[in-house]
C-alpha cells in the first residue's frame, strides 16, 4: 500500500479522528485496495502506536478511547468486505461482554470493550444490568469463545461466581473462556471462582484476552 496513504491512516487512529478514519477506509475501497492490506498496514499500526503512546505515559484515557473508537469506525467499513479467510485470520475471536445484573456501572466495561475491539476482537457488548442467562444465550448464538463479566459492586461480583456455576451445570464450561473484572475484583477472587483470566485495567484485560485467544 502507498506509504503516504498508510501514514494518513495511522495518523487518523493516533489522532482519534473517527471521521478521518472512516473517510480513509471508504476511499481505500473506492480505489480498489485490498481491505486486508488496508487493515494490516494502515490501521493496525495506528492502534499499536496509540498503545505505545499510552505505555510511555504520553496518552491518557481520553486519547486511548478516541483511538479505539476511530479504529472501530474504520473496521466497520472494512470488515464486511473482507474475504472469509482474511476475516478469520484478522479476528482474534468473538467476545461477549457486559456488566452483571443489578449493576449499572459501565465505564470500566466500556473501556475494556473499546480496547478489545481496537485490538482485533469482535466485541458483542450487552451493556449494563445484564442477566447471566443472556450472556450464555448470546455466546451460544454468536459462537463467541470468550465471555467478559464486569462488576463494580460486591453484590454483583458474586454473579461472576454464579455465572461459572451456571456454565458448569449446563455442561458448557469447556466451551468458553471467562474473564472477570471490575473495581472489587482481585486476582485472588478470579482464581477462587475458577475464572480463566482477570484484568486489573483495560489494557491488562486485552492482554489476558489475547493470551486466552492464542491458546
Amino acid at each position, binding site marked *: 500500500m502507498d506509504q503516504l496513504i498508510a501514514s494518513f491512516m495511522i495518523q487518523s487512529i493516533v489522532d482519534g479522528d473517527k471521521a478521518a478514519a472512516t473517510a480513509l477506509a471508504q476511499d481505500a475501497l473506492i480505489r480498489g485496495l485490498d481491505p486486508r492490506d488496508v487493515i494490516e498496514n494502515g490501521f493496525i499500526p495506528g492502534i499499536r502506536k496509540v498503545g505505545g503512546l499510552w505505555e510511555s505515559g504520553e496518552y491518557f484515557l*481520553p486519547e486511548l478511547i478516541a483511538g479505539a473508537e476511530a479504529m472501530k469506525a474504520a473496521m466497520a467499513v472494512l470488515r464486511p468486505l473482507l474475504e472469509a479467510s482474511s476475516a478469520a485470520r484478522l479476528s482474534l475471536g468473538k467476545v461477549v461482554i457486559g456488566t452483571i445484573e443489578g449493576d449499572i456501572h459501565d*465505564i470500566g466495561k466500556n473501556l475494556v470493550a473499546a480496547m478489545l475491539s481496537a485490538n482485533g476482537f469482535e466485541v458483542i457488548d450487552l451493556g449494563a444490568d445484564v442477566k447471566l442467562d443472556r450472556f450464555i444465550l448470546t455466546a451460544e448464538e454468536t459462537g463467541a469463545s470468550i465471555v467478559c463479566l464486569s462488576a463494580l459492586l*460486591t*453484590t454483583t461480583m458474586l454473579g461472576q461466581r454464579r455465572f461459572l456455576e451456571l456454565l458448569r451445570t449446563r455442561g458448557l464450561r469447556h466451551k468458553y473462556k471467562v474473564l472477570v473484572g471490575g473495581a472489587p475484583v482481585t486476582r485472588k477472587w478470579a482464581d477462587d471462582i475458577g475464572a480463566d483470566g482477570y484484568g486489573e*485495567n483495560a489494557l491488562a484485560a486485552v492482554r489476558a484476552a489475547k493470551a486466552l485467544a492464542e491458546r
Partner: protein
Amino acid sequence: MIPTLRPKLELLSPPLLEKILGEAFLILEREGLVFENEEARKIFLAAGMAVDDDTGRVRLTRKIVEDSLASTPSSVTLYDRSGESAFLVGGDEVHFDPGSGGIRVLDHRTRRERPPVTEDLVILGRLTDALPNLHFQSTSLVTSDVPQIIGDSYRVYLNLLFSAKPIVTGTFRVEGFGPMRDLLAAVRGGTDELRRKPLAIFDACPSPPLKWSRLTSQSLIDCARAGIPSELISMGMTGAASPATITGTLVQHVVENLAGLVLCQLARPGAPVIFGGSPSSFDMRKGTTPMGAVETMMIDLAYAQIGKALGLPTHAYMALSDAKTNDSQAGYETGIGAVLAALAGINVVSGPGMLDYESAISFEKLVIDDEICGMAYRLIEGIAQREDPIAEHLFRAFDPGLNFLTLPHTRKWYKLEHRLSTLPDRDNYDAWEAAGAKTLDERASDRIREILEKTPARLPAPGLVEDLGRIIGEDARHNGIATLPALEI
C-alpha cells in the same frame, strides 16, 4: 465583647453560582432526566410533569423545582439512640462521621486488606462511639460473613447495638427499607416517634449522568414518607461520567440532586433532604476516582456552597484518602479535606477511617482522623476575644520576670483556648525514643486497645436488644438465612 468571626471558605463567585444554577434549571426543564422507578414516574405525572414511560425520562419545570425547594426544611435535627442528644444538621454546623460502604478492612495486625466480618463492625461501632470528634456513626463496612441480601439491615442492627450515635446509612435493595425502618422505629418506640426524632440518614445515589435507578428512587420515596432524611449523593466523575470541567460537573450535580429533591417533596411535602455528594476528579491514567485529589475537594466545596445558597443542609465525602496504608498520603489527604470541609461549613462530612478510595476502613486511621476532626472543629470555633481588656491588664506594672505559667489568667483560659492532644507526637526526641520510638499508626493501635479494654460498649436496654434481634432474625429468615453470627452482648 467583639463577636467571634466564624472562618468561612467559598470558592464560587455569586455570578458563577447563579450561572451554574441557571443551566441546571434549564436542563431539568428541557432535557430532564431518567427515573427507572415506575412509582416515581407516576408521582411526577400526577404532579403534572412531562413523563415518557418508554425512556423513563421526566422533565421538571422551574416552578416545581422552586416549590420543592421552598417546602424542603433548611435544617434537620438528628437524635441519638437515647433520643436525648440532638444534632442540628443545617446552618454552618459540622458533623464528622466515618466514611461508609467499605468492602474491605485494613487488618491492624497484618497491615493487609481483607473482607470484613461481624466482629469488625462491632469494634468499629465501639470505637466510633468512644471517639469524641465523630458525631455520627456510619454503616461503614459491608460484612462478608452474612449473606449480601440482608447486608443493609444487618449493618444497621449492629450499629444500633454498639453505638448510641446517630447513623448514616442506605439501602442495598428495595426490600431492605422495611426492616431498616423497623429497627430504627423499635429504638424510638414507633414510626411516629421516629419521624419526630430521626435517628438515621439514608444515602441515595443517582447514576451519573442524569439517572435515578429503581432502588435509589424508591429509597427517596420511602424515606420521605417515613420522615427519614435522605442524603442526595450525586457522584459525577470529571470527564468520564460527567463533564471534564469542575463547573460542568457542578451543573450535572445540581440537576441530579434537585431532581431527587423534587421526588422527595412530591412523595411528602416537607420531607427532610440533605444536599450531598460523592463526585470525584477522574484519573485519566488509572481510570480511578481519587477522593483525595484537590479538584475532588473543590467540587465538594462548590456544590456545598450551592446547597447552602439554596437553603439546604449539606453533606460531602471528605476527610478520607486513596492511600492503601496509614502513610503521609493518608494523613495529608484526610487532613486537607477535613479542614476544608469544616471551613466550608458542610454539615455532614463522611470520610474518617476510610482508605483506598471509598473501599477500605482502617481502625487506626479512624483514631488518627478523630484527632484531625478535633483540629478542624477547633479551627472553625475561630479566635474569640475572651476578655476585656484582652491582655492589657496583664502587663500593668510590667516586670521582665513575668511568668505566665503562674498567672490565674493562664489557668482560667488555657484549656478553653487549646486542645490537649495526646495522639500526635509532641515529645522531645529522647523522650520519644524512650517511649518506644512509636509511629502515629502504632500509637493509634495502642489507643484502640485502650478504648476496647477500658470503655465498655454502650448497649441498649435488654428489652430493646431483644426487639432488635427479633427484627433482624425475621428479616434473615424471610431471606432464607437460618442463623446469624453469634454476638457477645
